[in-house]
């Protein structure tokens, strides 16, 4: 088929938003598994990531096709590059969600401890950052993208609190060790999700303003 660039760019945006929706669903389910001990949600996330992987490959193929056949420039070109990178980021977020769900199931089985508040706050913050990142992408909203980047610091700080909690609690309750390790692992995954949301924010800024803010 000859290339119809406006149509294919719209379809590409639709595809990335659809992938974002699928990943957001998994993030929400993973957090629910953790905080509300929703085992059904955990199992749903644990089920294969085929759908997400397939979307990532399809998006990459669509980007390749657009670049090869229609020679986009300026905003169109930046959008294709940004979407190509974001699809990889989304795939990694989905992976993190899957790991968190697994740890949530472990924690449920161990039944030993109450999750520290810092972890609960991390989960809420990461989930909200992801929702904001998707909103910013949908609307190509740079201000919101910048707010997502700014929210990362708080998640980093919370992770330090989780660490501090573990350092204090493990010696006092040695029987909690396995569970505490799960908690630390979840914290790391949530921090990674927040990082990845920051990356999405940076890609949105690149898309809209043409600025590379990645390492600033």
């Amino acid at each position, binding site marked *: 088929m000859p290339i119809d660039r406006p149509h294919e760019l719209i379809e590409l945006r639709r595809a990335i938003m659809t992938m974002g929706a699928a990943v957001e669903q998994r993030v929400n389910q993973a957090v629910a598994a953790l905080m509300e001990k929703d085992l059904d949600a955990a199992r749903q996330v644990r089920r294969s990531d085929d759908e997400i992987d397939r979307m990532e490959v399809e998006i990459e193929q669509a980007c390749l096709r657009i670049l090869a056949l229609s020679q986009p420039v300026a905003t169109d070109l930046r959008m294709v590059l940004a979407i190509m990178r974001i699809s990889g980021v989304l795939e990694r977020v989905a992976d993190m969600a899957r790991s968190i769900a697994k740890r949530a199931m472990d924690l449920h089985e161990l039944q030993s401890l109450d999750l520290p508040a810092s972890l609960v706050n991390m989960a809420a913050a990461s989930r909200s950052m992801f929702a904001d990142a*998707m909103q910013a992408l949908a609307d190509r909203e740079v201000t919101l993208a910048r707010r997502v980047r700014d929210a990362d610091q708080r998640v980093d700080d919370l992770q330090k609190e989780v660490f501090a909690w573990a350092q204090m609690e493990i010696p006092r309750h040695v029987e909690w060790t396995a569970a505490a390790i799960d908690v630390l692992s979840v914290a790391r995954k949530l921090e990674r999700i927040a990082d990845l949301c920051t990356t999405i924010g940076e890609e949105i800024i690149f898309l809209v303003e043409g600025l590379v803010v990645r390492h600033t």
Partner: protein
Amino acid sequence: MTQMQSPLTADIALAASPRRVPRIDVSNVTSRSLSLLAEHRENASPSDDAETETAVRVRGFSSWYGDFQALHDITVDIPQRQVTALIGPSGCGKSTFLRWVNRMNDLVPSARASGTLDLHGMDVLAGTIDVVDLRRRVGMVFQKPNPFPKSIYDNVAFGPRLHLKIRKPVLDDLVERSLRRAALWDEVKDRLKDSALGLSGGQQQRLCIARAIAAGPEVLLMDEPCSALDPKSTARIEELIAELRDRYTIMIVTHNMQQAARVSDLTAFFFEGWLVESGSTEQIFTKPRNSQTEEYVSGRFG
């Protein structure tokens, strides 16, 4: 076997509707994203176009100008109602090949050919065919727009008057339809009696396309149709080609690879009289199988 219906006699709905472009409203992401997701899961992946028939079948086709062999053993299927681009460096034989499809090379005394070149099963090379009718069925548009020194109306009416016995009201209708399909009607409808030579380059080229269409062809040959035009006219013609492919098999020779990438379904790469590689345009421009093809489309020579 589906019968080829001549566009002339088909019940024609003017192809005026703009391409449908789905709009996506992503103002409210949460609900919108969930419904996008639901939609994605419901839809089967879109299937490719139904099997396409071959319009021009080429097997072991070779041609010479005197002792010089211009084409070597070309074998390819040109699909019906799709756009096939012929690319390659100067002198590779792509224009020669194009001109055999409607026997324009008959005008060159030393030209001869061997092998198979069939148009919908008819042997184009046979001595017995009506070459004039062949050139009605296989229209041609040239690099430099060449309107006749007549009125706009008479340019378009020329072919039908020559080939068909039709009354004026029907002819008027045909001229209008052809000009509409060539995306020129709105610009000339109030001055059909004016000389075609007064039109701009881009308009003249669209007139030549209207003229070719009016004769009711099955195939349109275009030999670098945009080379003499400015970028805006070029874009216009490219849009037109995309619309025309619904009705006509189109073969376009172009030295502009980006144009080939934009407009065509199939691309055939010629080099020194050989067909090096042909395939879907997407495959040629993303994963060419032959290293020479790769070098050419990457702009390393030619």
